[in-house]
């Protein structure tokens, strides 16, 4: 029995992992773009971006999933996400990328604003252009600064993937719960916790390693 359960849970975990990975791939760059928007000198863009970030961070991700999946259908009268599990999965990824992009943007913004003006000025008098200053001087230092808050957020994401089931995307918890109905077993659901624990444990070690690697300098 354990083998059957383990196999099923592995399949569910695979789905959770897909949500996790695709969210990071989308939200890490999106967050940087949102961060630029919220630091823009063009104030309409700045306030618009900050309003979006406020809405996304101020409401539950679960509610956002429901609104993003069902909202377009209610307003436009057609299901823009496509039919079946694929459509649901796309909606989940869109909601997660948007949500995490907003959280990441605030972490980026804090990191970028923490770099002293002197660093920009030093680059400027050395004749570096804006792109060189940002990518060669500022961003590497931002990267080091944001590792601790980023690791927090990314570990939260591991657990948040379980929210996907509110719009019927099958992930780890769903697969665990299924054994209650089919076999009357509750322990597979409990056992899903082990998967989350092991995965976030691995991430913790990984981030610890990166932090240590970057310890050769102080900002």
């Amino acid at each position: 029995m354990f083998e059957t359960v383990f196999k099923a849970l592995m399949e569910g975990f695979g789905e959770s992992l897909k949500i996790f990975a695709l969210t990071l791939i989308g939200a890490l760059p999106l967050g940087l773009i949102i961060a630029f928007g919220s630091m823009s000198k063009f104030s309409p863009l700045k306030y618009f971006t900050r309003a979006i970030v406020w809405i996304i961070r101020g409401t539950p991700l679960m509610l956002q999933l429901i609104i993003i999946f069902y909202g377009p259908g209610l307003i436009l009268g057609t299901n823009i996400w496509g039919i079946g599990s694929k459509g649901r999965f796309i909606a989940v990824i869109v909601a997660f990328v948007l949500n995490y992009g907003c959280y990441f943007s605030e972490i980026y913004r804090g990191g970028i604003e923490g770099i002293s003006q002197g660093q920009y000025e030093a680059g400027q008098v050395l004749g570096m252009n804006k792109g060189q200053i940002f990518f060669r001087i500022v961003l590497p230092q931002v990267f080091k600064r944001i590792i601790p808050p980023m690791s927090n957020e990314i570990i939260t994401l591991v657990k948040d993937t379980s929210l996907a089931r509110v719009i019927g995307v099958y992930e780890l918890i769903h697969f665990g719960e299924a054994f209650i109905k089919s076999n009357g077993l509750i322990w597979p659901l409990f056992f899903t916790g082990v998967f989350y624990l092991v995965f976030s444990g691995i991430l913790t070690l990984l981030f610890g390693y990166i932090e240590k690697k970057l310890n050769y300098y102080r900002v």
Partner: protein
Amino acid sequence: MAVLEIKDLKKSFGKNEVLKGISFCVQKGQTVAIIGSSGSGKSTLLRCATNLEKADSGSIAYNGEYLVLDIDGQQKYAQKEELSKIRSNFGLVFQNFNLFPHLSVMQNIIEAPVNVKKMSKAEAEKKARELLSQMGLSDKENAYPCELSGGQQQRVAIARALALDPEVLFFDEPTSALDPELTGEVLAVIRKLADKNMTMVIVTHEMAFARDVASHVIFMDKGVIAEEGEPKEVFYNPKSQRLQDFLHSASL
């Protein structure tokens, strides 16, 4: 032709007029010291000359090429390509060094030569090693800024600025963030550069250093040049009451 020529430079921050019409020239090989109390506009002057602040009016020219030109009260700044050419004329050493903390000493020095001047890495490194040995830091090329003392960091910053072969090097209170012992080692390096006829403009509170090393001294007070001349004139025969008071308080 003067390496640097500034004419009637004015700059305000809000209602506070910091520079009220500054004019002076720097000739090749000169070491100009700018002295004066805090808030007299010394640093703002350097920041305008190095394009870190935009002037409100007046002109700044390097070797006859204008960084900014005043045409009938309109400030016309040099554009992109011109600007990068003019910028290659000068270097700036900051009060708090502003080394790049994530880069080693060597990487700090070759960053701009390689990525801005498009020098080959080998050539840039060779030059950096020469500069480091001049600075007495040959053994530090692989160190990171956080592993160095303030005096060492400032010497790396000087090497970083020199790596681009500037015609004129500005120093904005280069020793103000250092304790007396470390101040000496940085001043010694600047003195050596003066002996080699490096053209320099130094904002400093080190009166003895200004007196001994500078070829020309400018005393700024409340946004104007209140007095200027040869060091022995300025220090031993001050004409204005303001300069006499200032030198007295600097106890020289």
